[in-house]
């Protein structure tokens, strides 16, 4: 029961966060929301027992790729045009 609730919570948060990251105009905010998405995925992997995958998601997905995205955004215009 508790696990079911946890899964439902995380999966619905995933959808919200995914839509939100496309919704916002500011690309830095979008990148940070992507990091949140990765952390939620990481939680989900860890809960399923795939700890190796969760670890990779936390380091690569939430850590380095966010930094790389932000490093790229700082060399662009910050706001999306449309």
């Amino acid at each position, binding site marked *: 029961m508790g696990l079911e609730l946890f899964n439902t919570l995380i999966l619905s948060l995933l959808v919200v966060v995914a839509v939100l990251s496309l919704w916002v105009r500011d690309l830095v905010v979008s990148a940070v929301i992507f990091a949140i998405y990765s952390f939620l995925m990481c939680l989900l992997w860890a809960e399923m027992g795939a700890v*190796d995958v969760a*670890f990779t998601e936390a*380091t*690569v997905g939430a*850590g*380095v790729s966010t930094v790389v995205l932000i*490093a*790229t955004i*700082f*060399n662009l215009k910050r706001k999306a045009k449309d």
Partner: protein
Amino acid sequence: MKRAAFILVLLIGLLLAWAAKDFPTWGDPHAPASSSPVSSHFISNTGVDTEVPNMVTAVLADYRGFDTMFETVVVFIAGLAVISILRGGPTRRTRDREFVVDFEPDLIVTNTVRLIVPVIQIFAFYVLAHGHVSPGGGFQGGVAMGASFILIALSWDLKTALTRFPIERCFTVAAVGIVIYAGIGLLSMALGGEFLDYAHLAKVLPVSPEMARYHAMLGVEIGVGFTVSAIMFALYASLSTDGRMQDGL
């Protein structure tokens, strides 16, 4: 146009949601992944063949070693491609950036980073070296190692990080990582086995063939860690400066 795209995305989303109900439920013993003979072979033989408790690492670095080797090569080539494409471009210093970052490193930030960077690096070594016993391994440890240098670059500036890990050394370290991986493979070939057949390393190591596979996996993971950490830092250095490798964010 926007509305059409929205409807298209909605339709494909519904299609995926509809298809998702055919997936086996979580933990289903009759799921194709659980019932295939390959999985049961690995589950029953990993401990016997290799003495490695973490089955994921054993599959990744030993049974599927060839695959992981070329995954590392892909990381290497991707890093080289990004850096050489950005470096070749014209130097467009004049383009207006929306951000003007002040270059004075913050006292609180730098001192915090000074404290936590050694911890991150030791943790990275632990993840790398303990990868075949607990979750972790070359990729995760390498990324944590690269991230510690990125943290230095973020809190001081890129120049400080590049004095500790020059970009030329990044390429050397990345190449050395692949040479370590391929070298272990070639060594086992020279000792009479096939490429990456670590059990034959027992002829030069004073251990049983099973333990030879255990130790060779560690060697291979170290190679992966070298390449990944160097490429991660080089990627950041290149992307944050538009390929100029100076000033930084």
